[in-house]
């Protein structure tokens, strides 16, 4: 077990190295705005741009820049400074992290609370009207682009522009430490929007897996023992069907922690996703690198956690 963990951690490191190198490579090979020009202000002279470039260290060859970046990162946990604002990248990211955590955490709870029961009911009432209705709605929710859903939600419910002004609209995020009620209210819409397509997907996934689990022989045995049907479904069927769900939850959370760019943009939640989007727009390489690495880190860790959870759920995996 220790050996397994050690190997996985080595892989984590190798992966993050690869991600950082690839990000650098992409930034330098694909056309983008010139960060020096963007930094230099309006109508900069060529000399000013060149000056700025030298200040930022952009005149150095790519591999030198990469080396410098990695050295600072590994030795000092220093992600560098934003080209745009000169603010330290690490602080920027850590500032934004709570918002992303709030958004992700709430959405996960919501989509599991909706998606799982719907999946179970659909499976148990297969082909009857609850199933067909649920799966139909799910298909719509999955197909609808999340930013469209967000805009529609704002249009309908936002307290400033909405038709039925029930909930706070965009730009209303408050950290929980300042005003818990406002924090909660500001996240309800983004949570619902983000959870919508995930809940739909999970409902469909669980339905499929549960149907398959319920056709297994051990379900027949459970019934033959005289177990009430509810226990057959929940204790025997679900236990088997939940494994792929656990895997997917882990991966989805890992991805979302890297920033749900679209939702954060539509609702103007100051999270990592929004930060990444702005950084890309302004060709702010250190910030881009920082957010990408953060995102990669969460995903890789999530993968590891999921693998361990899988082994805990399915005892057959442990002995392999």
């Amino acid at each position, binding site marked *: 077990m220790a050996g397994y963990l050690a190997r996985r951690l080595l892989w984590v490191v190798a992966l993050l190295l690869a991600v950082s190198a690839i990000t650098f490579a992409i930034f330098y090979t694909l056309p983008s705005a010139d960060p020096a020009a963007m930094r230099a202000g309006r109508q900069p002279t060529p000399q000013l741009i060149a000056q700025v470039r030298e200040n930022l260290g952009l005149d150095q060859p790519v591999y030198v820049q990469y080396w410098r970046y990695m050295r600072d990162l590994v030795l000092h946990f220093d992600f560098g400074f934003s080209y745009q604002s000169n603010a330290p990248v690490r602080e920027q990211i850590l500032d934004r992290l709570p918002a992303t955590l709030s958004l992700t955490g709430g959405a996960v709870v919501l989509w599991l609370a909706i998606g799982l029961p719907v999946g179970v009911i659909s499976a148990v009432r297969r082909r009857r009207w609850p199933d067909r209705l649920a799966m139909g709605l799910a298909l719509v929710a999955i197909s609808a682009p999340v930013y469209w859903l967000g805009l529609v939600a704002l249009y309908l419910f936002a307290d400033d522009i909405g038709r039925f002004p029930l909930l706070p609209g965009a730009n209303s995020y408050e950290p929980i430490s300042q005003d818990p009620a406002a924090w909660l209210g500001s996240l309800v819409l983004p949570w619902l929007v983000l959870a919508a397509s995930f809940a739909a997907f999970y409902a469909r996934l669980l339905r499929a897996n549960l149907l398959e689990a319920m056709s297994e022989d051990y379900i027949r045995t459970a019934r033959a*023992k*005289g177990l009430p049907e509810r226990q057959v479904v929940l204790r025997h069927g679900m*236990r088997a069907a939940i494994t792929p769900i656990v895997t997917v939850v882990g991966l989805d959370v890992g991805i979302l922690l890297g920033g749900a760019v679209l939702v954060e943009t539509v609702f103007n939640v100051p999270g990592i996703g929004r930060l990444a989007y702005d950084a890309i727009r302004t060709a702010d390489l250190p910030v881009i690198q920082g957010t990408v690495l953060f995102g990669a880190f969460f995903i890789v860790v999530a993968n590891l956690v999921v693998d361990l959870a899988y082994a805990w759920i399915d*005892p057959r995996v442990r002995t392999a």
Partner: protein
Amino acid sequence: MALLEVEGLRVRFDTEDGPLQAVDGVSLSVEAGRVLGIVGESGSGKSVTALATMGLVPGRIEGRARFEGRDLLALSPEEMRRVRGHEIAIVFQDPLSSLHPFYRVGRQLAEAVRVHQDVSRRAARARAVELLGLVGVPEPAERVDAYPHQLSGGMRQRAMIAMALANDPRLLIADEPTTALDVTVQAQILALLRRLQEERGMAIVIITHDLGVVAELADDVAVMYAGQIVERAPVERLFAAPEHPYTWGLLRSMPRLDVPRERELVPIPGRPPSLVHPPGGCRFHPRCPYVRDPHREVEPALEPVPGDEGHAVACLLDPATRRRLWREPAP
């Protein structure tokens, strides 16, 4: 009064190709403390017959299944649920897929106990260990915490049997319990079933395609073909004087250790019939070497064999002809 009396059982499934009559008019009885073997090949309806009496089979069910006087098929789902795993228990064919892979064996056994008995978890677990010991699992106190995949095939099947015995059933249905096992393990399991049956006075219905298993374990035998019983007899009579051409076919086509090696196998020609469009008249007639014209139209009923108590056969040939044919060499 017989422990279980099945009358006119019919089970129909609706399939894409049309209605499939898996069981078509089966009547049999199981006496307390005796073993009934139901023998047939795939598609004969043997498993469906047993499972249908327990309400474990989807589809349209007609007929009666009286257990100690109560018609199981007329019970409410809740009443039926209370019978399952309690007065009547089932052991299935493949213990690896029939036990839940994620739960420990002891936990599954304890669950079987707690469904029908109001006992604490500790008591149920103790009972699980006791049951495992009863079925011959060595070191039951340790094995009780094993997962199914950690046990050998024979141990798993013993655990399944232990689980079935959890609430002292009066009737045990064993659906191909040894088919997935090696022959030495099979012998052990059959011996175990025999011992348990004698010790507890439990009735057993054993469903199998293997006539050898039936010979070892059963007191009475019912031979099924295409959803119907074609012959019924005490086990010694079935082997000594079988009456139905299908039974003859089975006996003649099986290689056996107790006949000369060079004896030719005589296969039954053709294939088992479709249950969606069964043959008219006697269902076996397309494959019967002794078929006559009326057999294609008239359906034989299960009738007693004259002079042979407890022996019945569904065949249109007259008894004297049958006796003569059985003594002749195969065609």
